[in-house]
């Protein structure tokens, strides 16, 4: 934990009842003196080439890493919109924050800052004793805020930034009569700064390729940390960036290798697969309690965790082959999920490994209730949604949206005795030529999972009619989740898909160069489809660190070490 870097020193101080709001300014509304303090930083040969909003998990992880896991982060995060057929990581590159979103971030920032500088915690973060606890102390404030700002902004604060936040703390202390309240307000201001809420990627001239740009060291440190650990860079990474080691390929390789072999890589792998598998769908997952008595909120919360445990257990703990995700009979079980799967769970609390018997149709993540339930409707299964998800999510084969005037009557009439099973209903629906084109590529895949209902519980019949789990994909017939999983594990589309998603996840935009993906997939295969190897490839891929396109005109450049305001001030001049 980074907090260990700080000197532990008990600092006595009185708690004041006055809130930061009473100062007459908010963290998101800087004091008028900011422009005056934030003098333009020395021009640096750097350009901002991308800004990516950090995710909720990255925000939480960063706060926990810097301030400790006992610092509570309470509030609502404005979601980052997922672009069609892309990752949320790509959406983050275009994500703005609404006024309401900023208000939420501001409220969260104040709660965090109040905890950091409360009597219980301040000793961990304040390396000095203020001359007067009832007044500002610039030296002590600076000594406190500059190191914290370095972790939050993922780079050292510029002189102007340091001066600004120090002055902010002093002014707030003077108005509140509390040195600690001053620190609180200043830290809260950092937490709503774009420098914290966004990963600001910067490029510099590439000496090895004259006329070209490459991402600078700090950007590399942040990208490595966010991609591999889903958090901000730690002290070692920041130091490596400050020493310029991350633009050296050999040293970059070594750092990335250490990171993918760290236990913290699991956090990154979880975040990646949650993004790739569209786990945000669990946030709104609702099922009809009359139709599905085995579904409840505890089940809904356990389902993504089960899939993520299956993934990390196979790919990290057992260093397994990615393709086995579609065939493995090993999963993880908890008491909450036992009834849904109708399997025994020995531990009263927590998770335990569970192996489905050989031949059980619960093979792979496609046979897990998590996948099956999010790609279903609230009261019925959906071979179409499941088939589409397999095509789009696991094989990266986009399926067009249905036209707006589709008549769904046939598929929704689930109690019609003439069409007792979903297969019957979809056959009738697919007679419409405007529908059949897409249904041909989704339904024969999804119908193989019909023995699992809308929450992923096993069923042999629907409306007292035996269910067939026959499926077809790309002209090959198979049976059930097991057959589908076997075919997916043998399909090059799945490994190329995860390779392209990994690259997209790292750079924040969909991969465009298919030759790069093919090369990555080849290397992925040579490693035995090791996820560590894949992410190491992405993290060290020279192409991923290059910046394409024309350089930004000088008059559009933004100071990279000053605040945005400072940048604007500079451009006005």
């Amino acid at each position, binding site marked *: 934990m980074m907090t260990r870097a700080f000197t532990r020193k008990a600092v006595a101080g009185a708690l004041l009842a006055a809130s930061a709001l009473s100062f007459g300014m908010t963290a998101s509304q800087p004091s008028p003196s900011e422009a005056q303090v934030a003098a333009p930083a020395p021009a640096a040969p750097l350009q901002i080439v991308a800004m990516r909003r950090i995710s909720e998990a990255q925000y939480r992880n960063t706060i926990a890493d810097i301030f400790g896991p006992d610092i509570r982060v309470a509030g609502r995060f404005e979601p980052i919109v997922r672009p069609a057929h892309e990752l949320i990581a790509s959406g983050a590159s275009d994500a703005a924050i609404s006024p309401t979103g900023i208000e939420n971030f501001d409220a969260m920032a104040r709660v965090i800052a109040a905890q950091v500088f409360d009597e219980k915690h301040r000793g961990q973060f304040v390396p000095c004793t203020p001359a007067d606890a009832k007044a500002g102390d610039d030296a002590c404030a600076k000594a406190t805020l500059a190191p914290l700002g370095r972790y939050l902004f993922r780079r050292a604060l510029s002189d102007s930034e340091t001066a600004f936040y120090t002055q902010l703390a002093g002014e707030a202390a003077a108005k509140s009569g509390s040195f600690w309240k001053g620190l609180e307000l200043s830290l809260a201001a950092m937490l709503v700064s774009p420098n914290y809420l966004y990963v600001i990627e910067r490029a510099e001239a590439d000496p090895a390729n004259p006329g070209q740009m490459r991402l600078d060291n700090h950007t590399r440190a942040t990208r490595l940390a966010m991609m591999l650990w889903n958090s901000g860079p730690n002290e070692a990474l920041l130091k490596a960036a400050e020493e310029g080691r991350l633009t050296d390929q050999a040293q970059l390789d070594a750092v990335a290798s250490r990171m993918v072999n760290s236990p913290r890589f699991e956090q990154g792998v979880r975040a990646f697969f949650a993004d790739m598998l569209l786990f945000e769908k669990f946030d709104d997952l609702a099922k009809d*309690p*009359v139709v599905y*008595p*085995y579904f*409840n909120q505890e089940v809904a919360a356990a389902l993504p965790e089960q899939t993520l445990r299956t993934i990390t257990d196979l790919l990290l703990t057992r260093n397994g082959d990615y393709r086995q995700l579609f065939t493995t009979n090993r999963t993880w079980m908890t*008491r*909450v999920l*036992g*009834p849904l799967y*109708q*399997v*025994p*769970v*020995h531990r*009263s609390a927590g998770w335990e490994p569970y192996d489905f018997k050989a031949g059980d149709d619960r093979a792979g993540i496609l046979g897990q209730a998590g996948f099956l339930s999010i790609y279903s409707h609230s009261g019925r299964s959906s071979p179409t949604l499941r088939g589409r998800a397999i095509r789009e999510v696991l094989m990266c084969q986009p399926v067009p949206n249905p036209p707006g005037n589709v008549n769904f009557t046939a598929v929704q009439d689930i109690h019609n005795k003439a069409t007792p099973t979903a297969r019957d209903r979809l056959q009738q629906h697919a007679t419409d030529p405007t529908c059949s084109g897409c249904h041909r590529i989704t339904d024969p895949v999804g119908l193989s999972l019909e023995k699992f209902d809308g929450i992923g519980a096993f069923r042999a019949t629907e409306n007292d009619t035996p269910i067939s789990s026959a499926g077809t994909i790309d002209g090959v017939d198979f049976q059930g989740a097991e057959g589908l999983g076997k075919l997916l594990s043998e399909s090059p589309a799945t490994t190329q898909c995860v390779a392209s998603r990994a690259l997209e996840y790292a750079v924040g935009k969909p991969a465009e160069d298919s030759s790069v993906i093919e090369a990555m997939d080849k290397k992925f295969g040579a490693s035995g489809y090791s996820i560590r190897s894949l992410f190491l490839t992405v993290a060290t891929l020279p192409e991923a660190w290059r910046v394409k396109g024309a350089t930004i005109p000088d008059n559009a450049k933004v100071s990279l070490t000053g605040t945005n305001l400072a940048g604007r001030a500079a451009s006005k001049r």
Partner: protein
Amino acid sequence: MGFVVTEFIPPVIQEKTACPAGTVLKIRDQYLHDLPEAERARLSLKENEKELVTKWQTSVFGPNNTNICSQPDMFSRPEMRTVQSKFALGLHLDGGKDDSCEHDEFTTPDGQTGIDNQEYRVMGCTLEMRGTDGIKGDAAVGMRQFHASGEWTQVILLHGVDSLENDPDVEVIYANTPDRPTQDSMGNFLRGASFSISTKPPRERNVLHGRIVNGVLTTDTKDIKLVQTWGQGGARDLRGNRSKYDFRRGKMQLKFQSDGSVRGMVGGYKPVWDVIQSASIGGVGSALVAGIDCAQYLQTLRKYADGIKDPKTGKCTGVSSAMQLTAIPAFVNDIPAAPAIAQRSAK
């Protein structure tokens, strides 16, 4: 083969001949009933309601702040209405043993004779057990909540079952689990949930031997103890303590159902005090709010006691009892075998 108990209630046969005079009178009504006719008529007038309330409520108290439920032995009360029908559900418990006391036996509606259920005979006309006109009594409703809470939850684990029709040798673990059953939105327990048996106090684990004959599992006679937690309070120093279901010479009789569940009875002889324990723990509140005459119950129970004979006095101190039980399939984890105790070195 495991089960979780979903229903554990006193078996009541809803029939008009059971309580021809009606359900057991509450204290207020009993007070009125015992008065001379003229006085009863006077106090029944609306304008005398306050006087009536004062008088019947005063009757539940004794000297030194005692009351009819906390110290039922101190009060002499008339016998309560008992079940008059010859039909009851239950088990044949006495089996010709000579440690029982003289009593009439019931017959089940399907013709089984020799049914011992004196608790039902005494308590079967109480409003709490019988309810009103087809509505289950408070006992049945309350029991379900207790079992859903994880406080009382019971599980059954069968070992050595080779046939659900006939098997002469079956081990039955009948125990409490601290695990709360998973329920659907209607409050029904879900099948296929997992539970762990715990012997950590106050929970119990009974190991019984039984046999299956024609699809009915019957255990040999053996004492059965199960968790039973009532409310707090009372003057018998039961505050904060936990009571037990204490079925002496108990047995289970369960029929395997086609849907995988089991239904039947568990019973034995209960100390008479245990029957009124809940009301007694409730203290004066049971008398004043629920109108329960604990002393009347206790005296009637003693009169009809048919088991747990005191070897010194020769009097029976317990009543035959049975609970109707339904259990659905569940995964039951038995406690692991106790670790071997390391042998102490001879040196």
